[in-house]
């Protein structure tokens, strides 16, 4: 039951960003550099977190990998193929589940198959995905009838149905309450371990990054650059209160200048820099 993903070699799901830069033209005609010459390689099957204060261009980076925006310069390759635009081999999931409200859960999950015109071939898989995310009983429910966690699970199934090589997660659990969120983290890890999809997770939550990812890329803001990349050497399943876990978290907090009484090296983004990361004790 393997769907050959569109484009590139079917087995290679590595992600390469080379000298990627993104500048936006502002209304007064000046340009604003959001991301500056960023180079990053994500190995096939790796789960990488992008963290950093608001304004460091995390979401922009993710949208460029998804193909929804073009880099001003530099190149992005998935499985050796350059990215020309959005495609089914790169799934995307937002903080807002963005389920199509006029479709039932089943029809939402089917969307990717319908969009690619292959529903008739893979119709049977829809039930597998409903089961994978535990929504069999809600197949015919409409999005407004779902809780936040259920809606996000449906969005996850919808993003996975095309067997993407890379799954891009833009703060997917940010709007959930703490308990639902921890449960969902385990679900994503379970699916990732089963499928070995390459995943890039943008998050504000340092604990989430440490708990879920193989590697944490810390970005600095305005313009976005890689401040540091940290390997997470903890064995899975991880313990949220393991001494090394806490050590790592302190290290990252310090790097983001929240541990030593305020930002010094990194210019704080007005208003929003402390929103997620700094808010956690």
């Amino acid at each position, binding site marked *: 039951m393997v769907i050959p993903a569109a484009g590139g070699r079917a087995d290679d799901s590595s992600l390469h960003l080379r000298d990627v830069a993104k500048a936006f033209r502002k209304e007064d005609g000046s340009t604003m550099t959001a991301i500056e010459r960023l180079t990053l390689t994500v190995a096939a099957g790796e789960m990488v977190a992008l963290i950093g204060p608001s304004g460091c261009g995390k979401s922009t980076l993710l949208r460029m990998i998804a193909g929804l925006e073009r880099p001003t310069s530099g190149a992005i390759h998935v499985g050796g193929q350059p990215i020309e635009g959005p495609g089914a081999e790169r799934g995307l999931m937002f903080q807002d589940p963005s389920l199509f409200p*006029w479709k039932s859960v089943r029809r939402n999950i089917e969307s990717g198959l319908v969009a690619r015109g292959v529903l008739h071939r893979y119709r049977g898989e829809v039930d597998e995905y409903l089961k994978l995310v535990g929504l069999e009983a809600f197949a015919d429910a409409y999005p407004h009838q779902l809780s936040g966690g259920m809606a996000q699970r449906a969005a996850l199934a919808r993003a996975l149905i095309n067997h993407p090589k890379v799954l891009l997660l833009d703060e997917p659990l940010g709007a959930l309450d703490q308990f639902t969120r921890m449960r969902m983290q385990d679900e994503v890890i379970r699916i990732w371990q089963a499928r070995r999809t390459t995943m890039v997770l943008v998050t504000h939550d340092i604990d989430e990054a440490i708990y879920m990812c193989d590697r944490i890329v810390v970005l600095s803001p305005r313009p976005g650059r890689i401040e540091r990349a940290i390997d997470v050497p903890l064995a899975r399943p991880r313990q949220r209160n393991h001494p090394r876990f806490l050590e790592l978290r302190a290290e990252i907090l310090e790097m983001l200048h929240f541990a030593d009484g305020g930002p010094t090296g990194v210019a704080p983004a007005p208003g929003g820099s402390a929103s997620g990361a700094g808010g956690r004790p």
Partner: protein
Amino acid sequence: MSSASQVMDPAREEAALPDDSGPAGPGDFFEGRPRPVAALAPAGAALLALLVHVFLPDRQFSPPSRLYAWFLSALLAGSLVMGGLRWTRGRLGAWCRYRSPLVAGAIALLILWDLATLKSGWLPQPFFPGPGQVLAAMREDAGPLALSTYHSLRLLLSGYAAGVSAGLVCGVLIGWFRTVRYWGMPLLKVIGPIPATAYVPLAMVMFPNAFLSGAALIALAVWFPVTMLTSSGVANVPLAYLDVARTLGAGRAYLIFRVALPSAMPSIFLGLFMGLGAAFLTLIVAETLGVSSGLGWYLKWKQGYLEYAHVYAALAIMALFFSGLMTALFRVRDSALGWQKGVLRW
């Protein structure tokens, strides 16, 4: 066209029927009163109407006819059945419980009408015939009225269908494609607000026959609101839906027809309702000005002969005809926008 008053939702009222509770629930309106009174109210009103009509002396000349007395007797029988059905379970019983005050009220209006015209001569003839005369006119002219209704319906639906089709196409084009929007929007803003009826002189010379010119006028009247609301619905599709669809492998056709259009549906239905109201208005104007058939034409024709009973007969049929079409459109909307229940209340 009082489309504002028609944008109350008969379907939702009925949907709330089976359980009689809830905030401002329709069913508990008469809850505190002795039930037999509520049950017998329509029958009582019908009986009173019959007594008034048969036993009070006429103060106004009217051709002798028993038709209205028979009609009231039938109403009385129907009311009694309705009163009995109140105690049955299920939808029909609930409907009878909910509607009986309304039926009684409607019959009371008939009594007042009879009193103000036939029984007192208070309202001047021939402009205000009594209900009996209107009913007699309906029977007398049943054939022409049916034919007129058919002609009106045919003209209205032809024009409406053409206007909706054109409006949907233009709306999607203007809403989706930036270039079409740039050129189309100003045109729409300039041409759209002119009432379609202002084009009567033009339509009469541009089309080979009255039917086509009438249909074109109706289509034009419908086209504007449908185009406007379709394009705004399509242009305002939440970007996240489009982004998600793109990353699912969607092409342009999928984005337009499977994302933008369904997402614009609530807005499109607003346009359809406004268009239907505009279509009614334009239909009647077209039929009184150029088209020589249909209810509007019948109205004007009978007015010329001062046959006001027939005018009222045509008005009554028009009321049923228009509200029937509105209700039908509400039903279509409810089945098409079922997914919205609980998201929006409107």
